[in-house]
């Protein structure tokens, strides 16, 4: 179990982590979700004792990370896949880690086999693709059979096949009762991977709940309705206190704040003709944007800092209900949304 208690981390004027508290339970995958610059990597570094918190604490099985007698057997971490010395072979990279706490040498071969890097074990990591580096990072994390895994954006740079592989691996590890904290800035990826979500924006906790609850709570329902008597229908809808938004289609609107049966009944009561009545679910990605939107405006820019290119731009996204059903099909497709090319790790440090 990982416990984060009222954690604060400031870098000069930037508050990267702002009174964050949550726990990560064993036996499930906890998705640590937030836009770039939300403080996910910083939180992970604080958990691992790499950075000193400004205040608050992070505990692993009740202890600060530094007090773990043999940390690799408790926690496997993947922070930045590129953080290896390019002149060293994959084997030697894992060997020096193993030697810190007497992990047998053959274990190095075995984890390399597990991640599929056996053929390049004796190659220097300089020539590795980002995907291969990610696999090496996973191998390092699994080296000493840890009960807890902390993975910072592990699907970055992986091809769709690699993404499915890592997702299955995490699920299997969680099923064995391990504790898994995996960060991502992609809601859709988390929707198909995680069981539980911890959502952060601007260093603050935005949500901490099961994925299903998150979906139910944050992706508001809406109904697409098509009618030859659209103006009359609009008036009726307004009377009820529901909202009409343009659907982008001729003769149809999207009504939010209601359900298809309610809207159908209203139309029948008023004697209005309907040509279409389709329930819509907003995409999860939109729900996530919505949730982090008001903080997103400030989240990425410390004074004098340029805004990261792929940060969500406030106001660019319609409210959850305003868009046709896109998000709910996307997560099912392997690697949806996660396979976009991204330049290395997210910047910021």
């Amino acid at each position: 179990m990982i416990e984060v208690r009222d954690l604060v981390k400031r870098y000069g004027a930037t508050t990267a982590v702002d009174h964050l508290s949550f726990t990560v339970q064993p036996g499930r995958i906890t998705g640590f979700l937030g836009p770039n610059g939300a403080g996910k990597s910083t939180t992970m570094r604080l958990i691992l004792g790499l950075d000193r918190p400004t205040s608050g604490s992070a505990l692993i099985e009740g202890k600060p990370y530094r007090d773990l007698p043999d940390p690799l057997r408790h926690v496997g971490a993947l922070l930045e896949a590129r953080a290896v010395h390019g002149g060293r072979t994959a084997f030697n990279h894992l060997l020096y880690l193993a030697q810190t706490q007497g992990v047998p040498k053959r274990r190095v071969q075995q984890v390399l086999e597990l991640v599929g890097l056996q053929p390049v074990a004796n190659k220097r990591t300089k020539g590795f693709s980002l995907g291969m580096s990610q696999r090496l990072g996973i191998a390092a994390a699994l080296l000493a059979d840890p009960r807890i895994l902390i993975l910072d954006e592990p699907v970055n740079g992986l091809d769709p096949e690699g993404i499915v592989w890592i997702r299955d691996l995490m699920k299997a590890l969680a099923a064995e009762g391990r504790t898994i904290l995996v960060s991502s800035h992609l809601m859709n990826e988390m929707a198909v991977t995680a069981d539980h979500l911890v959502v952060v924006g601007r260093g603050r906790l935005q949500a901490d709940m099961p994925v299903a609850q998150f979906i139910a709570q944050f992706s508001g329902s809406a109904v697409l309705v098509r009618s030859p008597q659209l103006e009359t229908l609009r008036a009726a809808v307004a009377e009820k206190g529901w909202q009409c938004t343009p659907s982008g289609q001729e003769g149809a609107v999207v009504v939010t704040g209601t359900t298809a049966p309610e809207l159908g009944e209203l139309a029948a009561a008023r004697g209005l003709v309907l040509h279409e009545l389709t329930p819509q679910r907003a995409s999860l990605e939109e729900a996530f944007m919505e949730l982090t939107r008001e903080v997103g405006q400030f989240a990425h820019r410390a004074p004098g800092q340029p805004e990261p290119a792929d940060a969500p731009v406030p106001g660019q996204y319609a409210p959850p209900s305003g868009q046709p059903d896109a998000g709910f099909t996307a997560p099912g497709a392997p690697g949806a949304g996660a396979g976009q090319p991204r330049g290395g790790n997210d910047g910021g440090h």
Partner: protein
Amino acid sequence: MSTITDTRSTLTGLTPLPPASGRAGFGGALRSEWTKIRSVKSTVWTLAAAIIISVGISTLGNWGQASHTSLSAADLARRDLVQRSMFGIMLGQLVMVVFGALAITSEYATGMVRTSLTAQPRRLHVYFAKLVIVTVIAFVVGEIISFASFLIGTHFWATKGVDLSLSSHGALQAVIGGGLYLDGAALLAFGVGAALRHTAGTITVGVFLLFVVSIIVNFMPDSWQADIDKYLPANAGGQVWATQHTADVGTAFGAWAGFAVYICYAVIALLAGLLVFKRKDA
């Protein structure tokens, strides 16, 4: 990369580890640091370069001086030929600075230090394990350089009728001292590197302390020079690989007193490095 098909087995096919056996201790840190340093070519090349450059320059210098001098054997014997035979150390020390710097700054250049400190979060273990490995390697390489330089040099001076050997007055101490001096240069750079976390900056500071400072002092008024000169790292440390410590070089320090002053610079750098390594965010 399509080798993974059976993900269901996850870790079950792997060797069960012995039950968690206590601590990631200092022994493990030492083994780990030894693996780190021997498994990158840059270290091996730097050390090879140190040996080739130092011994090469010593050899050239001794050959040139021995074959062009018009002094008699008796006059030559009054000079510190032992130190001259190891002249290459003047350049070798700069390569040792690079070695000492890289031993720590390369971890910051790649960000690998975070992986290292995740495996061993007790930072003093990591720092001292690195320090021990750097000290031992730099000592061995330093002694190879000083002994090889000296032994090659004796052949050239023998052609001039000067009988120089390890049993000559002060020679053994000076030759061992040559290796120690080089070790000190590596340690100074290691400490500065831990404090600065930046390769080029560390090498610059190292070169400044060992070289440039002496040049600057040369431009000072003579009366100041007399006071400051002997405390400069290169001058103080230079006494331990010399056989004469008199007015010759304008210093009053003996071999070991000079070496102690020299090592003080390294110790100050190492303490500064330790504080930064221990306290600052990785």
